[in-house]
Each structure stands twice: as C-alpha cells, then as structure tokens.
C-alpha cells in the first residue's frame, strides 16, 4: 500500500466544510440505536469547540428510509426536504449539517436534481408553499456531522486526554473504518476523500493516533440496505453482507470498527451477535467481538468523556476491551445503572459472544 498514492487522491477530493453556525438535523433511528452519539456531537461542538449549532425540534424525517424502501414518492420526499431547508432559512442559518448519512445523500441528490431540473425545484417550492406557507433558500454548505468532526479533528486531538494507542505497549490501535454507502458513493465529490478511498474517518483515526486498516471488502455495504433488513425474508442477505466484511477483516485482527452512518454500526454490532448465535463464530480474540463505534462516541472517548455517558453500554459487542487498550477508566459497576443510578438490570449473556469479558 502506497500512502502517498492515497494522499494524491485525497487532495483531489477536498470539500468545503463550514466551521460555524450549523443547522443540525437529527437521524430518525440513531437515538434508539446509539442514544449517546448525537448528544455527544452537540456536547463537543457547543461545550468543547464553542460553536453555534442550531436545532429545531419540529424538523421531521427526510423520509429517506421510506424513499429507499420505495414507499414514499420522490416529490413528497423533496417537499419534506424543502421544509427542512425552510426551517434552516427561518433560523437564519446557511450551513446544513445532518446526523444521518442517508439524509446527507438524499439532500445532495435532491439539490443535484433541482440543479439539473429547475422546474422540479419550482414545483416543489409551490407544493411547500401551498402545504405549509413556507419558502426556503438552498443551504450554502451541506456537510455530514462526520465531515464536521473531521474538520475539527485536530482541535479534538489537541484537547484529547486519550489516543488510539494501546497505552500498555504504545502501539497504535488497528482501526477499520466503514463509510455509509450514501456518504460518497452517489456523489464522490461530496465526500471527504471521494468514494474509493474516503478520508473522513481515516483522517480522524490518523490524527487521534490510530492505524487505518485497508482490507479487501472495505467497499462492501454493511447490509442494512433498508429493504434487505426491513423485510424479514431478506435478512439472510443483509447478514451475509456484514459477514462478508467480518471474514475479510478478521485476519487483520482489528481493535475496533469506526463508522459514520446510522445503520452501519447498528448492523456491524448486532449482526456479530446474530452470527455468533447462528454459527457460533466470533471475530475478535477469545470469543469477543470487534467493538463498533460511531465517530461521535470515539471522539467522546478521545476527549475523556465517561463511556457510560456516551451510551457505550448499549452496544451488543462489549467495548471494555477497547477501553482497556486505550486506558480509558470506567466503572464496570455503573455500566447498567441509569442516569440517576437506578439499576437497569443485566442483559442475559449470549451463548457464544463473550459479553462479560475479564476487565482490567
């Protein structure tokens, strides 16, 4: 692998990322999947970096899941997206940043469509006006939340209390980065580093002290793919996709997987459990899985936030081994305690996946 070759490509895919005054739209599913992530994003942006991130509670879904599941027509989707833009406009913001990769892709898709078919944009404006009396300006800058974290990765590193290194050996941790398909596969120029060798997560890993693992199935989809997962009959296909990736990365014995999409961490995490239950196969050392983190969670760890505040306890694959490597202190006793210390009860241990590992 010639890193300079990659750097040449990364140079070609520089995208402009706003550095303040964000209008932030959340993901439909992430708060159930990884409750801590979006909260952590805001905490980092507002408390650490003193940035202005505006949220409007009345923003809705972008309808991406419905759109990609072929149950919401594109014009409806466009109108809903137009409404989000309207909310941004009303808030006097121009930098649109999304928590969800599918939304990010969809916003770009819609803006691109409008660019090529102004009449469609006009129609949508009419629809929105008729339906809500709202009108909007198109955002000056659209970035995904991971772009923003990428943008501030060095600041985060400077403020960081921990790095992606094994504090016992000083060796960098081996990290697999997995990009959501809708991040740059549709519009390579809209993603940091393009579609073939995306840099958005790789950049964070590098600057936070880790080592990026490039493995053959790097490009492959996590398997969520909406219809694949949502229709139970198709789940065999969904899980097969994740498995393909695990098999391909296993030989590199990664310490963790870093993701930037709502679906990917969910499925890369939960399918490890499902595969272990169905085939007795686990992909980490001694019966453990490979911890899967979102970029916000990782940033949080680097900044020394309490793992349980980041919501790491809801991961199916236990993260303790990773914490131990990074030397992040945590109180095992508190893992399953609620915010006010009430006992949430311990989950039943899976048959094969080592859920309660020996901790340091």
């Amino acid at each position, binding site marked *: 692998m010639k890193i300079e*070759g990659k750097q040449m490509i990364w140079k070609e895919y520089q995208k402009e990322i706003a550095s303040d005054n964000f209008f932030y739209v959340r993901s439909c599913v992430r708060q159930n999947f990884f409750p801590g992530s979006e909260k952590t994003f805001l905490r980092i942006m507002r408390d650490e970096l003193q940035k202005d991130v505006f949220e409007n509670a009345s923003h809705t879904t972008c309808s991406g899941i419905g759109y990609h599941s072929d149950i919401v027509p594109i014009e409806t989707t466009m109108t809903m997206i137009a409404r989000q833009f309207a909310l941004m406009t009303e808030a006097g913001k121009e930098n649109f940043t999304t928590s969800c990769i599918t939304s990010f892709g969809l916003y770009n898709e819609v803006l691109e469509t409008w660019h090529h078919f102004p009449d469609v944009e006009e129609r949508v404006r009419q629809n929105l006006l008729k339906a809500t009396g709202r009108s909007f300006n198109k955002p000056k800058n659209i970035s995904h939340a991971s772009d923003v974290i990428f943008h501030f990765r060095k600041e985060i590193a400077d403020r960081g209390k921990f790095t992606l290194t094994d504090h016992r050996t000083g060796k960098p941790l081996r990290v697999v980065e997995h990009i959501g398909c809708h991040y740059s596969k549709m519009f390579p120029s809209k993603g940091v580093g393009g579609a073939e060798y995306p840099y958005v997560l790789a950049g964070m890993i590098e600057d936070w002290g880790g080592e990026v693992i490039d493995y053959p199935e790097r490009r492959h989809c996590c398997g969520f793919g909406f219809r694949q997962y949502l229709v139970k009959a198709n789940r065999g296909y969904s899980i097969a996709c994740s498995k393909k990736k695990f098999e391909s990365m296993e030989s590199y014995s990664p310490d963790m997987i870093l993701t930037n999409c709502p679906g990917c961490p969910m499925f890369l995490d939960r399918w490890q459990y499902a595969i272990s239950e169905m085939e007795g196969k686990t992909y980490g050392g001694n019966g453990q899985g490979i911890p899967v983190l979102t970029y916000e969670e990782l940033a949080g760890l680097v900044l020394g936030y309490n793992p349980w505040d980041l919501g790491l306890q809801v991961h199916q694959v236990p993260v303790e081994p990773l914490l131990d490597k990074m030397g992040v202190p945590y109180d095992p006793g508190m893992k399953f305690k609620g915010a006010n210390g009430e006992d949430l009860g311990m989950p039943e241990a899976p048959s094969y996946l080592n859920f309660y590992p020996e901790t340091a």
Partner: protein
Amino acid sequence: MNKPVVIIGGGIAGMEAAACISAKGREVILLEKTGQLGGHLLQWDRLFPTRRKSSEVLRHLEKGMNDGISVHLEAEISGIENNNGVFIVKLSDGREFEGSALLLSTGYSVFDARKKEEYGYGIYDNVITSAELEEFFRNNRQENLLKGIKSKRIGIVHCVGSRDEKVGNLYCSKVCCITGVKQAIEIKELLPESEIYCFYMDLRMFDRHFEEMYYEAQQKWGIHFIRGRMSEAAENADHTLVVKVEDTLTGLPLKMTVDILILLVGFIPSPETARLAGMLGIDSGEDGFLIVEDEHFASNSTSIPGVFISGAVKGPVCIEHTITDARAAALQVLSYLDSEIAKWRNSETVK
C-alpha cells in the same frame, strides 16, 4: 513553395515522413520536444505480433535521417504563425523556423491509470501498467518485478482508459488487446509455471497474425481468458490483490487473488497535440484526436491548407500503420508543394 517542410514531432511518424520527403529532394526541419528521436519506440521492448525488437525498428528509421533533414531536439514550441502558406515556428528558446508546409506528428500519450481509482494503480504495490512492464522487459529488470511472488498468478486487465465513459474515453485503443496477449506470452516464457488470466470485454484481434497469436497464447501457453471488465481491485495484507469481475460467460461475479495486476493502458491525445492544434486551429473530434480533411482521399491534410497530420495524432494506431501513414503524409505534402498538383488535388478531393 521552396521553403523547407517543418515536421513537429520526432516519433515514428515524424521520422519516417521526414525521410520520405527529404528523399524527394525537399529540405526538412524535424523538431522534437525531447532530447532524443524515436518517440514511444524508446519505451517498448518487443513489438507485436512478430516480437521484433523495437530498437531494430528505430535503427531502420534512423537510417532515413540524412543531410537533407536538420533535426532540432529539446524544441519547445511557443508559437506558430501562418502567413498565408508560410509557417513561422517559434521556439521558447528563441529559435525560429520557416516552412512552406507543416506536418504535425506529435503522437499520443498513454492513459494515466490513476484515473481508474478503483484499480488502485499508484496505491497498491503490485499494480503496474503495460507500459511499465515494457520498461521492465527493456531493461531486463523483470526479476525485480517478479521477485517474492509465491504462486505467481498474474492478471492482465484490458481496456484500461478505453471504451470507458467514466474516464471520458469512448473509443477503442486498438492495440491493447494484442499487447496484452503478447505480454502474457512473454511473462509465460519468463515464468513457465505462472498462471495468467486476461480480463477482457472483447478481444479485438484486428490485424494479420493477431488472432493466430491469441490462439498460440491459449494453445501453447495455456493463458486463460475471462470475459468481463474488472470492476475493482483491493489489496490483501500480503500485498496480493483481490480482483472482482463479472465472468459474463457464467453470468456470475467472480473474485480471484493475483500477485501482480497489469493494466493495459490505452491511447489519449498528447497534451502537445491539443496545444499545437489549438495554435493552428485544427479541429479535433470528440475523442480529442485531430480531424482529417477526408478520411479516404485526404487522410493526412487538414482544414488548413499546408498543414498536415500523421500518425497517432489521428487516433490509436499500431506502428506498422503509423509508418504507412507517414509515407502517405509525405506524398500529400509533396504533391501539395507542387502547386499544380496541389490545385488538382484540391479539385479532386471528395469534400
């Protein structure tokens, strides 16, 4: 009408045309950008389908370089003036040349394989281009290339940068298919125990003895051909490569590990061609190669009287045909210069 003929580009076409024109007693000025005549012949080792050494062809061309030809190397052209039929060619170093006719033979460049990001050229250790392989052969450094290879399975990818809308080249580069077959055989001669797989869309064995060479590759050397364009390559921990292709003959996606991946890079118009064509106002086609006045009867003259073109500036072409084309160009230049015949030619021209 009695000034010399200025030929820009001292490659195969330029050299051969110069030789032919000066042989008819016309003075020729041959301008070459680099420090050496010969163009791409300087990069190849052996030529298809005869496996003749390219140096041998070059020697033949050099024989034609007589006193009637004044060769100027390191000639960086800064401007060209056209005073109704008299051409003044200015060089960046101040040199200046006058000519009654201009022959443009600035050739082509090989496609930059980096543009096919998914093939990982310049990123993965064991992905090389067909042009590089020729360099290896030329300098007998194959060992460097092949050392440390365990199983010695080698993949050869056809149509890299050709017939590909994604890199803006819809045309076929013609010579890659046969080059791939030639190189496959050469590798097999070097490593008889190696397995070689060619990934192709079509095998365009357009010229004499090409199909026979393809047959030999299969029958004598047991080279395998898989129909399907490589979609992407990925690198393994041990620096071998995973190739993904649809085997269109089984209708299934196929994945295989190879130790070395050779990309058969195609033709693109050389930047110099585009620049000079711009200066002179010669039209170029959508593919960027220059347009001739009439593809059958004036296949070396352009829309501008006195300006002629020859060789790969007109599109992908093999060496044999380049030489033929250069001779045809010489003939057209000469007959243009003989004004009588030139008039007659123009009236004859179909367009």
